[in-house]
């Protein structure tokens, strides 16, 4: 009898502990169910509906998903005249110039520009070769052949391409950040000040820094073109207002803003690299490069991995910067996937379709993250693994 009592109370203690613990994790778990798991599943369900919030939701089956994945590659050879079989060219605005008249045309001046006609192989119009209601995502023209990548929702695929393109800023920025961190990791005077200066752009609100850079990139009166000009470099960049430069421009600002964070994380990791490793390397006669190659780089690989993964997850969800600076333009050249989801969901009230797009992006990010973890086994070096 006496022995039983402590056991009993121990059992009730265990139960009490569990009850308390569940109470403690209740808010966090509720938040998870209400704002993550619930909405996630709801989002998946919504992706099979058509709903504008005003009228009741309608079951749409796989229509949304079908629209998203209506993608096709069309190959078209150079156009030929149906009657004569002659190859056709396009000179300026003039289509269907037969090969026999090409020499003539090249002698003449374009009535628009006043310069000699620029003639190139002609192809059928995009809408003649693409399926109905498809738009062009991208095109490649090689040796008299054209490949068109078309899609029903071509804007979404363009946005996805832009988003992936701009992710290149992550490794570029990381390389720069690593270089700065290595240089900064010496006994230098003013080191803390420098560290703070580099980190500053990262803490400031992205809305404010985007507005500042909007003005920096101004083609006529912005400081960037002026500074380039005063260094004797070409100063006529149109930056955000040109399709070819808008993505690199946003990337420049992105690197400026993320540099300090990446540098800080690298710096902290560098300080954790055991000094004996460097001493051993010096004894072995390793120079600066070899010390970096065989000591610094492997020791930093978990950090590199962390920055790469978080940078990519963050980059895939880029919204504020292009929203404030370009609204996705010019054309669709800087539209990102999240901007597209935002437009479909909150401007056009296509809740079902926007949910499908959001899920697509979510799955892409998840797959890339998983792939990153898989690849990491090959190149990321964790110190504690040696001892296992």
């Amino acid at each position, binding site marked *: 009898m006496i022995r039983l009592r402590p056991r009993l109370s121990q059992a009730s203690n265990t139960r009490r*502990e*569990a009850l*308390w*613990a*569940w109470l*403690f*994790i209740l*808010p*966090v*778990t*509720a*938040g*998870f169910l*209400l*704002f*993550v798991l619930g*909405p*996630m599943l709801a*989002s998946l369900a*919504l992706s099979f509906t058509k709903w504008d919030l005003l009228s009741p939701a309608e079951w749409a089956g796989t229509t949304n998903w079908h629209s998203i994945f209506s993608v096709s590659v069309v190959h078209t050879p150079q156009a030929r005249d149906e009657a004569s079989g002659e190859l056709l060219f396009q000179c300026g605005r003039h289509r269907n110039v037969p090969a026999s008249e090409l020499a003539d045309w090249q002698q003449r001046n374009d009535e628009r520009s006043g310069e000699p006609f620029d003639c190139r192989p002609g192809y059928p119009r995009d809408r003649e070769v693409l399926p109905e209601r498809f738009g062009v995502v991208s095109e490649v023209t090689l040796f008299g052949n054209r490949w068109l990548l078309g899609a029903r929702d071509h804007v979404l695929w363009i946005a996805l391409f832009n988003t992936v393109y701009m992710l290149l800023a992550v490794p570029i920025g990381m390389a720069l950040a690593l270089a*700065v961190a290595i*240089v900064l990791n010496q006994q*230098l005077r003013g080191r803390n000040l*420098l560290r*703070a200066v580099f*980190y500053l752009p990262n*803490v*400031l*609100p*992205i*809305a*404010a820094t*985007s*507005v*500042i850079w*909007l*003005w*920096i990139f*101004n083609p006529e*009166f912005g400081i960037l073109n*002026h500074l380039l000009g005063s260094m004797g470099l070409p100063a006529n960049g149109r930056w955000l207002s040109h399709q070819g430069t808008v993505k690199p421009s946003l990337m420049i600002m992105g690197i400026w803003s993320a540099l300090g964070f990446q540098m*800080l*994380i690298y*710096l*902290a990791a560098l300080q954790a690299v055991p000094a004996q490793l460097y001493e051993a390397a010096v004894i072995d006669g390793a120079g600066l490069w070899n010390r970096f190659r065989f000591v610094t780089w492997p020791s930093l690989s978990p950090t590199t991995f962390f920055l790469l993964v*978080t940078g990519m997850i963050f980059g*895939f*969800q880029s*919204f*504020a910067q292009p*929203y*404030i600076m370009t609204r996705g333009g010019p054309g669709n050249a800087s539209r990102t996937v*999240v901007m597209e989801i935002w437009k479909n969901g*909150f401007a056009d009230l296509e*809740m079902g379709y*926007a*949910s499908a797009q*959001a899920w697509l*992006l979510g799955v892409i*990010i998840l797959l890339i993250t998983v792939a990153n973890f898989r690849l990491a086994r090959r190149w990321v070096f964790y110190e504690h693994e040696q001892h296992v």
Partner: protein
Amino acid sequence: MSEALRSLAPATQQADARRQAQLLRALSYIGLFTLAFIVLIPFFWMLSTSFKPARGIFVMPPQWIPNPFILDHYVTIWQKTHLARGLVNSTFIALSTTVGEIATSTLAGFAFARMRFPAKGPLFGLLLMTMMIPGIVTLIPTFILFGELDWIDTFNPVILPYLLGTPFALFLSRQFFSGLPRELEDAAKVDGASFFQIYRHVFMPQARPLVATLFVLGYLHRWNDFLAPLIYLRSPEIQTVSVMLARLVDFYVQDWSVLMAGAMIALLPILIIFVVLQRFIIESVAFSGLKG
């Protein structure tokens, strides 16, 4: 002769090495200070523009020091826009969400680190998974949910989700509490303290560095939030300063002096916090990055 040379060699080698190190150090200074200057140019440019008269900004070559130096644009911002209100709103949202997040996340982090209960491992794994799930996936149903609750254009949608804790704060709390010595709670348990008392009076006083880190990171993060405030906060009276500034870009097209004054006001509070707490913020970021 040859012996004399040989004894000289180490000395010259050492001198060479020293000279090389000095050169490297000089190059480091030049490179770092140049880069720091480049990083700061946007801020000089913003400041300079914000104090120039409207015509002055289209003068080529640009003037770095405004002449005349005027405060009109700050007055315009203050009187004609709600930016001041935006600062109050941003502060309110950032403060309340951060405090709530810390309370709920440390409580759960404590339970996961120091208490035994069934389904602990799987539950924690499930909660951590949320860190991997991109927030964008949940955006639309959450919007619909808040719409059903009639909460659009109120503070609730941008505050409430954070009050229930974030996976990041939970993860960091669990890490921190797991690292504390076991004797801490043993003594308290013998004294018959309840689990909440142990959390509140034994563990939380030890957790100052954790709380400070969570506070700084949460505050900065919330202040910089853009998408959710843009979607939910419609009337100017409740908008955050970031959303208001983005709206100003459409109202003051090409009026760069006013926009730069606006940007300055929007980033000033964070700038002040950063300058004051600089060392601490940097350590927090590095600390959380290493844990993550």
